[in-house]
């Protein structure tokens, strides 16, 4: 039975052997069960025999009544040598960066008692400006993941780092000029990586650094090379664009670098004059849901539509070369014709203040055509920036590496990419080839498919545990400083491994980093001061890439466009990166697995998305299991019918169905990668679908997708709103008359906290949901509990479909506790566990709650969550990422949004200690801080000039379920659309 006395078994004088130096432990006891049994992350499966014995023993111990009220003896552990200016209980913030697809986004990590507990946006970083997407917020769980790989393994036998480095030294002292040496890395914009690869190739000219990325398949780069001559990246000016056409490009989803895009795009869309978004896509994405004019088309028809659009723009602008594109090939359908004409006239109307964006999935010719269109609409040139990804992404590089491996030409292979065996295309036998390499070293975050095939599996450090640098999309460099010493002694950062081959084994990455950036400091200023400022700010000034104005080679583009193949017939398979687990690397993250997909509200699973029309034709319904076959490979998967899906298109999200790796991701969903061939990375025709008996039970957090005509999430067109013709809004704004006397308690009130959620700004990216979960210690409950309707998110994003099933209009509505003035949950609580504060907060006191759950029944918004089981019983790692300023709730307690009351009270204490009142904007809730578009505003209604007060008076505001007389303190603002026919 665990010792009742010690609450925090941290490394202490004479304490039990701490789990940090597993190196020693790995040698002594061979094959002992890992420190944390698998499934420690998932919720308990009911009464385990051990739990019952534990309780029985505990019961007998307690039954002796003597001194049963004596609290267990608790230790207080001060520092022996304190770090400078450290005060217990006061958090510090460190600026670092989060790397996704090679680019960095600046983040600010809050560190309490030496351990990072929250990751939020870095206000001074150009990409994030304080906002942070769902992946940044959840990255903390990657650091504290109890299932991380722990032991260095050589052919499945635990060994020590010393033997690994001894092998690396032997391999580095080679004489064949690196012919047998290969590196398999992910393209990264990090200057240190670029210099390290250059040094390596300089020492071993024959060696090759092979890029591999399953999301960046080099199509955009090929398109840029075709149109602009060099692999450049076009930079859109979202603020200026009045008309935006997106050809299958989900630029609003924050995963793909959309933090800055969504902020600027929404800024350009505020009433009274809105920009207009035209989207053509195959599945319903965030951008599609947000579009004013949306067109459903199977992926292979998008090039055809792009051609039609170019022709129409050419006709309107009078450009003959473009106009001729309309010529041969199958013609467009009426809907497509209407959409193309509208888009073309809109683009031409705005000229340079318009933009055409193309998604990575489209062939290079379409990218080139977009550049040509943007140039034609503008001044003939395209604003772009050098591509800084080193090594440049190249789809064919992996297959050439596999040929080298099979031919036996490679004896040493260093893999720093994440689980390439799982992500490799299905016709590239990387797994088998790896076994032929004598010394293949894999930096393993988990013991996954790749670490099972390679000879050396080395536990790698998490990015928050090692020194690196990186660049944002616009080139701004950031020093990625570690937030905590490596949690595992045997963990090695990839840079240290590569150092063996660049002769820099002696100098740690920190030294190399400083050496590299020493040259960047202008002479008068000392390098140390600059370095400290860079680390504090989180950006290295003066590293933005210069903007280039590059003309477009029209003839080459038009030739390529004419060579585009015509669209296919029959069922088409369409691959997409999953909005939550991306390409599978976040599969081991319980917060992201449990984050409801913004469009389908699906958690812990992926599915085949099918349109309602196709589903009825193939007699499929939600949960039906099907078998997809493509060129001899087959996969079984469940079906999910999604309105707004293109007909005859089967969309399959990647990143699921991992067979090895962390228990959290093992066996969740099906592996779509098995059907993904090298030549058809994004869409493939000729897929055969056949029914398989059996039903699949999805864990959906929202099962009903229609609003039943109730005034819940309101949306109208800008014109109709300007004309004020829908009188319904007044009825939802005026507070309901009631019989109760004014609120009873305190006379003078200093603050009246309130919030406003602007549905017009909300794209549904769910960054706020994960931010709330990270700040308030909300547990992930596992698939089984979500299926039973017990997910614990305090903030949920309801997504409703309106209009007809095939062309739905979609609206996302973030909803949390709205802190009603006349709260229905308060008067039904028998123990006064939820009462109203003088400042308007509906307080939830966890230690007073006995769990009758009546408050949840009486809450009309159903935003209260209940701890049905003990969801917070994790190991020591589970305690480290918790926010110590928020109680961790036990079983049997109700919980809900508290307007981040720990931040309000923290600000109040700091203010009152300094003898002043809380300043405006000093308190920002976690969701407000994370939102890239500023849709959530929290503030003090007592101050008329506070943004939230203005929003409470904004004509677009309305109170949800106002007719019940609850008078909510959170107010929503309706979303305005800007459809084409309005403008006439």
């Amino acid at each position: 039975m665990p010792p009742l006395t010690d609450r925090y078994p941290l490394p202490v004088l004479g304490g039990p052997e701490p789990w940090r130096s597993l190196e020693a432990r790995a040698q002594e006891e061979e094959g002992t069960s890992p420190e944390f049994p698998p499934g420690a992350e998932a919720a308990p499966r009911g009464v385990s025999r051990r739990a019952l014995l534990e309780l029985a023993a505990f019961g007998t111990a307690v039954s002796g009544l003597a001194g049963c009220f004596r609290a267990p003896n608790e230790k207080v552990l001060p520092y022996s040598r304190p770090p400078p200016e450290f005060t217990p209980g006061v958090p510090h913030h460190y600026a670092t960066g989060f790397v996704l697809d090679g680019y960095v986004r600046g983040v600010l990590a809050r560190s309490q008692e030496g351990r990072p507990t929250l990751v939020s946006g870095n206000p001074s970083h150009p990409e994030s400006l304080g906002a942070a997407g769902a992946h940044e917020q959840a990255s903390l769980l990657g650091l504290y993941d109890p299932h991380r790989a722990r032991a260095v393994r050589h052919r499945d036998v635990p060994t020590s780092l010393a033997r690994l480095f001894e092998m690396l030294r032997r391999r580095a002292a080679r004489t064949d000029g690196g012919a047998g040496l290969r590196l398999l890395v992910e393209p990264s914009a990090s200057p240190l990586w670029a210099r390290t690869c250059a040094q390596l190739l300089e020492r071993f000219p024959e060696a090759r650094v092979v890029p591999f990325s399953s999301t960046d398949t080099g199509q955009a780069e090929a398109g840029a090379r075709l149109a602009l001559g060099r692999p450049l990246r076009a930079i859109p000016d979202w603020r200026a664009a009045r008309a935006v056409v997106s050809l299958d490009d989900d630029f609003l989803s924050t995963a793909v670098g959309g933090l800055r895009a969504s902020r600027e795009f929404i800024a350009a869309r505020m009433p009274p004059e809105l920009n207009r978004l035209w989207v053509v896509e195959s599945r319903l994405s965030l951008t599609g849901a947000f579009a004013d004019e949306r067109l459903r088309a199977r992926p292979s028809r998008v090039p055809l539509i792009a051609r039609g659009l170019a022709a129409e723009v050419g006709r309107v602008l009078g450009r003959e070369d473009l106009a001729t594109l309309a010529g041969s090939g199958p013609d467009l359908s009426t809907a497509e014709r209407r959409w193309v004409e509208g888009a073309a006239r809109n683009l031409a109307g705005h000229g340079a203040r318009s933009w055409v964006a193309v998604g990575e999935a489209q062939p290079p010719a379409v990218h080139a055509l977009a550049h040509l269109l943007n140039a034609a609409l503008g001044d003939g040139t395209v604003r772009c920036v050098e591509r800084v990804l080193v090594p440049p992404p190249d789809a064919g590089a992996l297959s050439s590496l596999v040929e080298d491996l099979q031919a036996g030409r490679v004896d040493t292979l260093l893999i720093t990419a994440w689980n390439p065996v799982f992500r490799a295309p299905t016709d590239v036998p990387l797994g088998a080839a790896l076994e032929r390499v004598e010394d293949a070293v894999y930096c393993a975050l988990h013991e996954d498919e790749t670490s099972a095939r390679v000879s050396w599996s080395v536990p790698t450090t998490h990015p928050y545990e090692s020194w690196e640098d990186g660049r944002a999309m616009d080139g701004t460099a950031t020093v990625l400083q570690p937030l905590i010493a490596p949690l595992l002694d045997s963990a090695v950062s990839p840079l240290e491994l590569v150092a063996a081959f660049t002769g820099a084994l002696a100098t740690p990455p920190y030294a190399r980093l400083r050496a590299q950036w020493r040259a960047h400091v202008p002479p008068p200023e000392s390098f140390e001061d600059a370095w400290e400022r860079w680390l504090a700010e989180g950006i290295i000034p003066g590293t933005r890439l210069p903007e280039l104005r590059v003309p477009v080679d029209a003839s080459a583009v038009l030739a390529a466009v004419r060579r585009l193949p015509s669209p296919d017939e029959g069922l088409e398979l369409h691959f997409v990166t999953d909005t939550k687990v991306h390409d599978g690397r976040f599969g081991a993250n319980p917060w992201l697995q449990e984050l409801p997909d913004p469009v389908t509200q699906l958690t812990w699973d992926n599915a085949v998305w099918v349109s309602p029309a196709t589903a009825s034709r193939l007699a499929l319904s939600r949960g039906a299991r099907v078998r997809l076959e493509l060129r001899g490979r087959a996969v079984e998967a469940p079906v999910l019918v999604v309105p707004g899906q293109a007909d005859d298109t089967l969309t399959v999200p990647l990143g699921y169905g991992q067979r090895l790796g962390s228990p959290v991701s093992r066996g969740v969903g099906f592996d779509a990668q098995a059907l993904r061939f090298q030549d058809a990375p994004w869409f493939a025709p000729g897929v055969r679908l056949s029914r398989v008996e059996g039903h699949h039970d999805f864990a959906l957090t929202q099962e009903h997708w229609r609003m039943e005509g109730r005034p819940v999430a309101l949306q109208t067109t800008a014109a109709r709103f300007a004309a004020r013709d829908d009188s319904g809004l007044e009825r939802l704004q005026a507070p309901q008359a009631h019989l109760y006397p004014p609120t009873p308690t305190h006379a003078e009130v200093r603050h009246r906290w309130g919030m406003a959620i602007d549905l017009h700004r909300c794209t549904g990216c769910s960054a706020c949901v994960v931010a709330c979960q990270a700040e308030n210690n909300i547990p992930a409950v596992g698939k089984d509990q979500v299926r039973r309707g017990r997910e614990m998110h305090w903030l949920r994003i309801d997504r409703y479909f309106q209009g007809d099933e095939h062309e739905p209009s979609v609206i996302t509505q973030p909803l949390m506790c709205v802190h009603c003035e006349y709260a229905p949950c308060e008067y039904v609580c028998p123990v006064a566990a939820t009462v109203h504060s003088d400042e308007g907060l509906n307080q939830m006191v966890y230690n007073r709650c006995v769990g009758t759950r009546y408050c949840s029944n009486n809450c009309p918004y159903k935003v209260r969550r209940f701890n049905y089981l003990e969801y917070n019983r994790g190991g020591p790692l589970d305690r480290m990422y918790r926010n110590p300023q928020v109680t961790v709730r036990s079983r049997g307690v109700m919980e809900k949004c508290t307007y981040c009351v720990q931040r309000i009270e923290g600000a109040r204490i700091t203010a009152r200690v300094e003898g002043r009142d809380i300043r405006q904007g000093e308190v920002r809730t976690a969701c407000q801080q994370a939102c890239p578009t500023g849709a959530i505003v929290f503030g003090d209604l007592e101050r008329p000039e506070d943004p939230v007060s203005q929003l409470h008076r904004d004509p677009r505001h309305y109170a949800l379920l106002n007719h019940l007389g609850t008078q909510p303190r959170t107010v929503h603002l309706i979303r305005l659309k800007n459809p084409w026919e309005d403008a006439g």
Partner: protein
Amino acid sequence: MSRWVLGEFHSPEQLLEAARALRAQGFHRLDAHTPFPVEDVDGVLGLPPSRLPLVALLAGVGGAVGAYVVQWFTQAVDWPLNVGGRPLHSGPAFIPITFESAVLSSASAIFMGVMVACGLPRVTHPFLRMEAFRSASIDGFWLVVAVEAPQRGFEAEAALRELGAAVVLSVEDRP
């Protein structure tokens, strides 16, 4: 040192006549033991009506007032909390518990009252030791005369036999 003389009869009517007769002969401290409540035996024995209803009323009112005061004090005085904007002293919400406590205290008072009034629980009463007296709860109708001196006891026994009592006993209560 109290003594009793008991006589068993076979029907409530015989019992009533015997009781009237004994009262006429001057025996006033009479009691009757019957298997079921006989209608007008109280009148014949001259027993005053039971004061239980008054006790019940007082207890009920006390319970109600007590409950209302507890609720008012805790919700409006000791720690006034703003619960859903409802008034601190929300009278209507206090009524259910007030009524329930009234019933609870009144019912407990009634039960305690019956116990005290009947002098129960007294399992060691001398009558219970007599085997014949067992018929008092089955089919016998017993008339009991409390006498001070043994002489009065013999007169009572004679009167009972003369009135047709099937069984006549006399019992002494040792201190």
